[in-house]
C-alpha cells in the first residue's frame, strides 16, 4: 500500500464520525466526465483529494483538457 493511501486511511468524516474508504467518484471538467476511485465518506459522500493529487495528476488532466 502506497504512502498516500496510508495517509488517506487516517482521514475521518467529522459529521459521520467514520474513516474514509475508497469509493467511486465522478470528476468533471470542460465537458468531460471521468469516474475515479477516491477516499470518501461511505455515508455522506464527502470526498478527500490530497494535495499531491490536486497539484499533480489532476492539474495535468486540467491542462490537457484545456488545450483540446
Amino acid at each position, binding site marked *: 500500500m502506497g504512502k498516500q493511501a496510508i495517509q488517506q486511511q*487516517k*482521514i*475521518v*468524516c*467529522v*459529521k459521520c464520525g467514520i*474513516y*474514509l474508504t475508497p469509493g467511486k*467518484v*465522478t*470528476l*468533471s*471538467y*470542460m465537458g468531460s*466526465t471521468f469516474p475515479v476511485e477516491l477516499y470518501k*465518506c461511505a455515508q*455522506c*459522500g*464527502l*470526498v*478527500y*483529494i490530497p*494535495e499531491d493529487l*490536486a*497539484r499533480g495528476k*489532476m*492539474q495535468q*488532466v*486540467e*491542462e*490537457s483538457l*484545456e*488545450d*483540446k
Partner: protein
Amino acid sequence: MDQKLLREREARCVQENPPGCTAGCPIHVDVRGMVAAILKGDYEAGVTLFEKMVPFPGIISRVCDQPCQKACKRKEIDDPISINALEKICVDSKHTPKPVVGLPEKNKKVAVVGAGLSGLTCAFDLARKGYKVVVFEASGVLGGSIRDITESKLPREIIEKDFAVFDQLPVEFEFNVVIESQGSSSRSFIGLRESFDAVYLGIGCKEQNALDLRVALDGNIAIDPVTLATSHPKVFAGGRLRRGCEERAPVTSIADGRSAAISIDRLMQNASLTANREKEGPFVSTLFTNTKGIERENKVPIIDLANGYSKEEAEAEAKRCLLCECRECVKACEYLAHYGSYPKRYVREVYNNLSIVMGIHHANKMINTCNLCGLCEQVCPGNLNMGEICREARQMMVERGKMPPSAHDFALRDMRFSTGDNFALSRHQAGFTASNVAFYPGCQHAASSPEQVKKMYQFLCDKLDGGVALMLGCCGAPANWAGQEALFQETLQKFEQEWRKLGSPKVITSCPTCFSMFQQNLPELQVEMLWTLLDRIGLPDKATTSTFARRKFAVHDSCTTRYEAALHKSVRNILGKLGYEIEELPRSRENTVCCGYGGLMIYTNKDVAHKVINRRIKESDTDYLAYCAMCRDNFASQGKRAFYLLDLLFGDEKKTGDEKDVPGYSQRQENRARLKRSLLREVWGETVQEPETEVKVIIPDRVRQIMEDRMILVDDVIKVIAHAEATGNKLKDSESNRYIAYFRPVSVTYWVEYSSQEDGFLVHNAYCHRIEILE
C-alpha cells in the same frame, strides 16, 4: 487571420531570408552554412553544402569571381570575408566525388552547343533529370575558356576531376565539331533543331555565327534575361554569348546553364517558362543584420598563394563571418527567446493553432504568454507585432470557447473586484457640483500605494481649480489583454457612463496602462498622465524636502506608453527637479521592455514572466525608478530595489524599495477596498461600516506565500472555512487533528487544512483545482 494575412505577416519577418552573400550568388551557395561548418571543423559538411549548388566544385573553388562579396554584410564594417578561399579549403580537405544519382531516362533529347561552363552545367542538370544530352564542342577538350586560366591557378587535374562526373551521366560528347550556321545537315543549326527537342547555345564569345535568330539592338542574339529563351521556341542561349567577353564570370556562366536547363525542362513538360523565377538569379536580400557594436577586424591574408588558407587561417577568417541573421526581436524579448524560434514560425504556429478543429492546441500557452508590449514591432525591420497577433488570437479563442479557463480567470476576477462596489467610486470634489478634471489612479496604483493616492488626490484638489473629481475602478485592461472583447467593452462603457455623469472632465491618471487604454479606446475622452501634469503645475511641497539622500535612479519606462515622448521627458524633469541623478537603461523610452505584467503574462506563465523581470533588473545595479506602480512592484518582488515615482514625491520613509513593500494579491484587494472606505469617510464625511468577516483566520507567512504562488486569496480561504463550519462538512486528519475542508465558490475548488484556535482558525495549507467533483 486568413491565409492572405498569414502570408503578409510571415513576409514581414525577414529572419528566413537568405544572407546577402547567398542572395548575391547567382547559384545561391549557402555560405553561412558552410562557414558554420568550418567553425565546427566539419569540412565535409562544408563541402557538401558547396557541392549541393555547384556542379564543378574544384573549378569554382579556385576561379569564382565572387559576386557574393559585394553583398557581404561585413563590408559595412571592414572587408568582406574571403568566401572563395574558404570554399577552396573545404574542397581541398574533403572533396571526394560522390556517385551522381539521376532520374530515370526520359524520351527527350537535348543538344548543347559548346562545352564551356554554361553548356556543361546545362548538360549536367538536364542529364541528371533524365534527358539524353549530346554536347557538340568545336575543340577537342571540355571547359571552354577556363582552359585559358593558368595552370598554377587552376591545375588541369582539378578540371579533369570535376568533369569526370560526366562518366556517370547519359551525356554524349562530339568533339571537334563546328555547328554550321548555314544549310540543313545534321551538323547544322537547323539540323539540330530538327533532330533534338531543344537546343542550348553556349558557344562563348569567340564565335559569332550568323544564326537565324532575332537579334537585339546591339546586334547580339536577343535573349530573355530570365528564361534565356531566344526567338526560336526550342532554342536557348547563355554564358559569354549573352554577357560578352569583357569579364570572366564563371559562376554566372554556371547560373546561365542552370537557368537554361530549368527552361528546357519546363518546355518539355509544357509548363510556364516564366512563373516563379524571381529569385533564381542573384537578388538583394531583405535580411536585416544588426552590425552595431561589431569591431573592425582585418581579413586573414592568404600567405601561401598556391595552397590557400591553412585550417587555422580558415577558422580565423570564418570567425569574421557575421553568420547573418536578424533576430532583433528575439534578442530584445525574453518571451520570444523562450519559445526557441522567431516570429515567422510563431505566426504560423498561431495560425495553425486557430485552425485546429480536433486535436491538441499546442500554441495556447505561447499565445497567452506574450506581454503584448509592442517591443518586437519597434525593433523589427518589417514592424511585425507579435502582440497584436497574440491578442487577436486570444479574442478568437474566447469567441470560439477555446480559451483555457485557467488562463485569465484569476486576473479577470481581480478586475471584477475593482469594477465592483468594493472599489469603484466616482465623486465630485467634496463641496463641488462640477468637475474640471478627474483623478483616476487605476486599480494597481491604489492596490500598491493607497496612502499615496489619498495624498495625491488632496494635492490635486489644493492645486487645481474648478473641482477635481475622483474615480476609482479598472480601465478594463485585463479583459482587453485576455481577449475578452465583450467584457472589455462593457467595462469601458461603465467607466464612460460614470465619466459623463461627472460632466466629461479631463482625466488625469497615474497609470500608463489606463492612459493607453483610454487614449486608444475612448477618442472623446481627454486624458493626461499625472507626471506631465506635475511637471507643468509643480511638485508637492514636501517633495523638495525629500528624506531620500541625493542619489541616482535608473529610469524604467512603461511599455504601454513607449511612444509618449513628452511623458518620458516629464518623468526625467521631475527627477531632475528633485535633485536626483538619472541613469538611462540600455532599453528605454520607445525601446523599453515590459516589467512582466503586461498581457497578463504573470498570471498565465509565471516562469517566463520571472525571466522577463530578472533580465530587466539585471540591466543595472542602480536602484530603479518606475512611474507605474505595477512595474515597480514586479521588480521589487524579484529582489531589485525599486521605487515608484510617488515614493520620491511624498518622501515616504517607510518605502524601502524592497520586496517587503510588495503587497500580495489579497492585500492588493484589501488595499483598494480600504482606500475607498477611508476616502468616503475622510473626504466626503460618510459613515462607512467596516465589513464583518465571517470567520477570523490566522495565516502564517509561509502559508501566505503558498497561497500567493497558487493564486488563492484570503477571501477564498475564509469562504472554505465558513462553509465547513456552517455545514459541518469537513474532514479531519486523525493523526494531526487538523481539519480539511473544500468549497467551490464558482469555478475553482479550494481546499484548506486548518485548526481551531481560541481567537479564530489557524490555516496550515491551501490548494486548489479546477476539476469539479460531481458526486
